[in-house]
């Protein structure tokens, strides 16, 4: 069975036409994983027993002639920061390597209600701290296009699994560019809606004002299908948005229409300057030209320089990390040191020293410093104020244009080992995704070609809050009409 570039609709059609059973395709994926994943390392833990049991349920429904959900029986990779009842959720960290989820994340729950099949928990930077998966305590995920390159991160395992044909789609999460980045570097579509559209409940927290679940897939339709199932109000997440249910898949339209007629696409000059790899700029500009020929208006826009977003993101994310990771203490769950201390706080300090990796320690410490009395105003509050200016900057630009487009990442996938001795690798790699993440805007990355070494290049589009449909439609137009 050829499993490369499978889409949800293809598998769904094959299942209901009984070309193969859900159990058969699940087993085929596990066979592929057993052949390829020792090299790629997309998964931390495989969940074969659970997956086959889920597939069996779907096969019984099909046998009984019941209608099944589009995703029912379609094998997926679940990023390992999503809790899934009775399975391990490590978040890529030694601290949680034996942690068994006592509940489902809302995303997991909603997918399971639609008879999702999860092949396993996908690798990620530990606690999602990174853009390469090199900070994972379970080893780096290699890029299926070139095994000497990183897959990107933090949702690198989900991306590599889909790109290598080890899963039909992947669930990821992004705080800056953790869905878009690995999607770009692995030649996939990566979509994350407006902050608050998809519940964060049960996702191991990184930066709570920024975190949002997302989807990695081989086409735009799959991004829309899965998002429709997982988005929507959730009483377990107080930042969840009380908007009407979404219908992105049904409303997908390959047309370039803007709010005032012609679609106006803003191209920030700061996104294509000398900081961006020439091959990336070239491919993205070719795509821009195609959009123009197809009828979109391209408007050069002037945004606050991404260097400010890097700084704001660095401070805000680390501050939130220091707070969120403070609960990971080895007392109720997590790593417990073999050394024993007489007092609970000393025991916590030992557990955390041994269980947290370099990146989590460094981010926690930087965040604690930025939040501490005397430095709060200079770092955290200042960053929050500049965040306001970044949001206002977007509001200004979106009065004139419908969507903003540009490269997703400043380079194609770098070589393994790139993060060594660079405590800011993630922040720099995500310089083009941080501005929209800080504003909580809906965004997508879609593939627009490869560089001279055959490495995929991603283009991103993002719009005002709640403009998910326009963002998806733009990528859909490219996929249907302009892609090579």
């Amino acid at each position, binding site marked *: 069975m050829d499993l490369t570039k499978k889409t949800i609709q293809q598998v769904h059609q094959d299942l209901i036409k009984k070309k193969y059973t859900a159990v058969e395709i699940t087993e085929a994926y596990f066979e592929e994983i057993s052949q390829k994943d020792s090299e790629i390392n997309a998964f931390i833990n495989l969940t074969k027993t659970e997956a086959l049991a889920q597939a069996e349920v779907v096969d019984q429904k099909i046998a009984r002639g019941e209608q099944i959900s589009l995703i029912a029986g379609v094998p997926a990779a679940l990023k390992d920061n999503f809790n899934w009842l009775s399975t391990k959720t490590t978040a890529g960290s030694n601290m949680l390597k034996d942690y068994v989820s006592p509940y489902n994340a809302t995303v997991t729950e909603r997918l399971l209600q639609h008879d999702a099949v999860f092949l396993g928990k996908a690798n990620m930077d530990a606690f999602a701290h990174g853009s390469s998966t090199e900070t994972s305590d379970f080893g780096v995920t290699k890029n299926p296009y070139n095994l000497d390159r990183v897959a990107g991160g933090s949702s690198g395992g989900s991306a590599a699994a889909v790109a290598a044909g080890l899963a039909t789609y992947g669930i990821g999460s992004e705080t800056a560019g953790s869905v878009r980045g690995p999607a770009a570097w692995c030649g996939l579509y990566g979509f994350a809606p407006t902050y608050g559209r998809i519940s964060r409940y049960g996702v191991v927290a990184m930066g709570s004002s920024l975190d949002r679940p997302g989807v990695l897939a081989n086409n735009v339709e799959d991004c829309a299908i899965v998002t429709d199932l997982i988005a929507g109000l959730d009483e377990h997440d107080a930042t969840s948005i009380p908007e009407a249910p979404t219908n992105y898949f049904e409303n997908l339209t390959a047309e370039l229409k803007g709010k005032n007629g012609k679609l106006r696409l803003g191209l920030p000059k700061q996104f294509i300057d000398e900081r961006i790899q020439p091959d990336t700029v070239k491919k993205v500009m070719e795509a821009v030209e195609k959009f123009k020929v197809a009828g979109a208006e391209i408007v050069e826009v002037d945004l606050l320089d991404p260097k400010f977003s890097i700084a704001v993101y660095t401070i805000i994310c680390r501050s939130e990390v220091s707070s969120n990771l403070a609960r990971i203490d080895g007392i109720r769950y997590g790593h417990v040191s073999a050394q024993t201390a007489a007092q609970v706080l*000393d025991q916590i300090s030992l557990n955390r020293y041994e269980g947290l990796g370099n990146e989590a320690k460094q981010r926690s410490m930087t965040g604690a410093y930025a939040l501490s009395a005397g430095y709060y105003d200079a770092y955290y509050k200042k960053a929050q104020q500049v965040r306001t200016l970044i949001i206002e900057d977007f509001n200004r630009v979106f009065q004139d244009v419908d969507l903003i487009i540009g490269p997703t990442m400043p380079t194609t996938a770098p070589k393994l080992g790139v993060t060594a001795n660079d405590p800011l690798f993630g922040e720099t790699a995500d310089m083009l995704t941080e501005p929209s993440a800080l504003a909580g805007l809906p965004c997508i990355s879609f593939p627009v070609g490869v560089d001279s070494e055959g490495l995929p290049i991603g283009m991103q589009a993002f719009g005002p809050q709640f403009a998910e449909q326009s963002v998806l439609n733009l990528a859909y137009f490219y996929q249907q009409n302009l892609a090579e």
Partner: protein
Amino acid sequence: MLTDSDTKKIAALIKIAIPESELPKYTSQLNTVLKAADVLKEVDTSGVKPTAQTHGLENILREDEVKPGLDMQKYPNKQFNKTISAFEVKQVIGGGE
């Protein structure tokens, strides 16, 4: 610029037992990271409200009714003592600095 002594204080604050020998490594990383925030000084933020949350929802409340929580008896967790139905922790009060 932070010194190793600052790093030691921060590590104590955030409850990570960093040994003396590793302090220089973290001091160097912390200084690199904090330096990246220097560009924020270029921005005039006088009178600008800080953003803590992007979509502006406020005070999300629900009825104050009791709902069942997780039943810990059902889950494998070596740190949970099922007999007494509680997490056992080390001494919290007294004997400290």
